C-alpha cells in the first residue's frame, strides 16, 4: 500500500509539521511506499529534503503556476498525484494551509476527511483516526469510509524523523497539470509577518503570561525569555481581556490549543478554561506566587515565587547556557 504526503512549503520554506507527517506515513506504510507531493516553484531542494526525511519517492509539481497557493492549481496537482499513486491514505500536516487544502481536495474528490488527527491507524485497509473535538474537550474516533482517506495530522503529534541526507529516492518531475489561463484566482500581494514572532501553534516552547504579569509592560520580561529560548508568547484570557496583549496570543478554551514541548506559565492561575488549551503540553512549568494556584496541579515543575524575579533570572541563565542570542 502507498501513502501520499503533501509537503507544506511557502516560498521554499517547509512547515516542520510536514516532516512529522512524513515520519508518521513511514510508520503506517510499513513495507509500502511513502510518496511525498511537493507543489511549488523552484522547490527541488524541498523534494530532496523529503527524501532525506523518509519519502521513497517525490512527485514534484514545480512550475510558476504553483508559485502561489491556490486551491484550483494545488487540487489539480493532488488529483494527478492521487490518480497515479492510488494511495490508501493522503496525509497532510494540519497546518493552516494543510487543513485548507485537505478539506478542499477531499471534497473535490468526494473523499472522507478526518482533520486534525492526533492518531492514525490503518486497520484492514480502513483508516481510523483519533481527533480532538469540542475544542479539545473530547476525543473522537472516526472511521473514514473512502479509499483513499484524507487526513490531516496535528503538528507536534508524531515525532520529528531524523534527517538522513544519504537516503535516496526517485523525484518524478510533473510540472503544470492544469491550464493556467483557466485559473481565475490571483494572488496580487503579500506582506511578510514581522520577523522574530514565533507562531503559537508551531512553537516547541511557549512562554505564557496571565493576570500576574499585571499589565502590558509585564510581558516584556516574558518576551526577553522567549527571544532567548526561541519561544512563542502565549497569554491567558485574563491578560487578553485586560487588553495587555492581542488576542492571537490567547491560549485556552476561546483561544488556541497548543501542545509544545515546554509551556512556561507565568502568573497564570490555571483556570479550567486555560487548561483546556495547554494541558497536553509535554512539560508544563508553573511560576506563580500563589502555591494554591490550580496551575500547580497540572504542572510538572513549579516555582512558587514572583515571576518578575524568576523570569529575568531564567533569561540570564538560559542566555549563558544557550550562547549569546
Amino acid at each position: 500500500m502507498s501513502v501520499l504526503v503533501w509537503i507544506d512549503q511557502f516560498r521554499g520554506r517547509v512547515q516542520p509539521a510536514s516532516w512529522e507527517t512524513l515520519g508518521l506515513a513511514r510508520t503506517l506504510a510499513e513495507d509500502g511506499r511513502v510518496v511525498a507531493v511537493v507543489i511549488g516553484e523552484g522547490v527541488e531542494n524541498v523534494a530532496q529534503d523529503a527524501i532525506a526525511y523518509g519519502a521513497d519517492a517525490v512527485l514534484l509539481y514545480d512550475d510558476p503556476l504553483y508559485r502561489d497557493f491556490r486551491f484550483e492549481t494545488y487540487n489539480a496537482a493532488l488529483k494527478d498525484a492521487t490518480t497515479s499513486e492510488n494511495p490508501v491514505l493522503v496525509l497532510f500536516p494540519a497546518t493552516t494551509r494543510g487543513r485548507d487544502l485537505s478539506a478542499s481536495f477531499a471534497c473535490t474528490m468526494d473523499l472522507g476527511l478526518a482533520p486534525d488527527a492526533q492518531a492514525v491507524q490503518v486497520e484492514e485497509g480502513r483508516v481510523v483516526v483519533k481527533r480532538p473535538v469540542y475544542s479539545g474537550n473530547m476525543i473522537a474516533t472516526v472511521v473514514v469510509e473512502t479509499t483513499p482517506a484524507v487526513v490531516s495530522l496535528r503538528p507536534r503529534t508524531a515525532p520529528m524523523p531524523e534527517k538522513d541526507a544519504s537516503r535516496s529516492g526517485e523525484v518524478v518531475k510533473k510540472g503544470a497539470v492544469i491550464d493556467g489561463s483557466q485559473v481565475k484566482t490571483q494572488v496580487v500581494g503579500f506582506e511578510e509577518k514581522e520577523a522574530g514572532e514565533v507562531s503559537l501553534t508551531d512553537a516547541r516552547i511557549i512562554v505564557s503570561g496571565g493576570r500576574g504579569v499585571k499589565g502590558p509592560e509585564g510581558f516584556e520580561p516574558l518576551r526577553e525569555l522567549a527571544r532567548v529560548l526561541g519561544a512563542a508568547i502565549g497569554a491567558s484570557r485574563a491578560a487578553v481581556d485586560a487588553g495587555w496583549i492581542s488576542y492571537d496570543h490567547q491560549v485556552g478554551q476561546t483561544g488556541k490549543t497548543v501542545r509544545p514541548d515546554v509551556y512556561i506559565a507565568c502568573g497564570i492561575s490555571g483556570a479550567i478554561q486555560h487548561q483546556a488549551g495547554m494541558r497536553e503540553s509535554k512539560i508544563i512549568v508553573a511560576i506563580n506566587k500563589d502555591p494554591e494556584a490550580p496551575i500547580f496541579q497540572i504542572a510538572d515543575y513549579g516555582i512558587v515565587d514572583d515571576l518578575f524575579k524568576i523570569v529575568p533570572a531564567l533569561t540570564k541563565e538560559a542566555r549563558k547556557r544557550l550562547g549569546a542570542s
Partner: protein
Amino acid sequence: MNHYWFNEEHEMLRNVVRTFSEQEIRPKIRELDAREEFDREILQKMGEMGFLGVCIPARYGGAGMDYIALGIVSEMLEWGDTAFRETISVHVALNSLAILQWGTEEQKRRWLVPQARGEKIACYALTEPNAGSDVRGIQTRAVRQGDVYILNGEKMWITLADVADHFLVFAKTDPQAGHRGISAFLVERGAPGMKTGTIHGKLGARASNTGWIVFEDTPVPAENLLGQEGEGFKIAMSALDNGRYTVAAGATGVIRACLEESVAYAKQRTAFGQPIANFQLVQQKIALMQQRLDIATQLVYHAGWLKNQGIRNTRETSVAKWYATEAAFASANDAIQIHGAYGYSNEYNVERYLRNAKGAVIYEGTSEIHTLLQAQYALGYRKDKPLRRELPPYDPEEWTRED
C-alpha cells in the same frame, strides 16, 4: 433561564446584556473601581444599543420593551457592576419613567425622546445634605417669578451629577405646606447659577458617578414644571417605585454573580486534599445564595409583572428592594468567606460585590424605612391611594408603534 415571567425576547435580552457585561464591563471594572472612574465609553455603547430607553415606547425613542425587560437589564448590568445599573436606575427608572408617567406630550418630546435614544443623560435630584429619608425636609426653594421659577439650594448624593445633561429636581414651592409644598422641575445642564461636582471616597459603586448640585438663583422656565405645583412629593415617590425596582433587580444580579463565582471557586480550590465544595459549611453558604437568588427573582419579577399590568406595586416593590439588597449583601459576605483570603483581596470580584451591595441597603429607602413601610401596610396604617397619573401599563402595541 426557564421561568414563567420570561418570554423569548427576555431570554435574548438577558443573554445579550450578560455578554455585554462580560465583555465590556468586567474586563475593565477592577481598574475603574480603583480609580473611581466613570466610563463614558461604556455609557456611549449602552446608549447606542438601547439600554437607556429599554422600556420606553418606540415613539418616544425607546426600545419598546416592557418593565420585566427593565428588570433584566438592571440585573445583568449589576452582574457586571453596580455602577452601570445605577445609571439605568436614575436615567431610566427615576427620571425617564417619571416623565412618561407625569409629563405632558410636549415634555415627552423635548426631554424623554433624547434620553431614550441615549443622546442625553438624565438623573434624579432629590436628596440633600440634610434630607435623605426625610423627603419633606428638603430645603431647596423654587420661587415663581413671571414665567420662570428661581431655584436655590443644594442637592447631595446625586448619581450622575457630573455626567447628566437632564436633571429632575425637587424643590419647595410652598415651604409651609409640608410634602404638599414640593414641586418637580426638569432642568438642563448649563442653566445659570447651576454647578455640579463629584463626591470621592465612597465605599462601593466607585465606578459610578455620585455628586452634588448647587443652584444659585437658577431660572427654570415654568413649562419645565413636571406635573402640577405641589405634586412633587407624589412624583418623587412614584419614581422611587420604579427606581427601587431596578435596585432590587440589580441586587439579584449581585446574588447571581456571588453564587456563580462561589461555585466555580469552591470546585477549583482544594483544601485538606479535596475541593472545598465538598465541605458542608461551604455548601451551606452556597445553598443560602441559591435560596436568596430564587426568592429575590420571584419578588423582583413579580413587581415587574405588576407594573406591566398597571397594578400599583409600591408595597411589593418595597419588599423586593428590602429583601434583595439585604440578600445581596449577605451573599457577598458569604462569597468572600468561601474565597478566603483571596476573596478579601481584589484579585477576585467578591470584595467589590460586598462594597457595592452595602450602598443599596441605604439608598432608595434604607432597610429601616422599608421595614416600617411593610409594618404600616400590614397593620393597615398605610394604604396607597390612586394617583392623578399612574405609570402606564405595558401595552405591546402601544409601546412598539413607531409613528
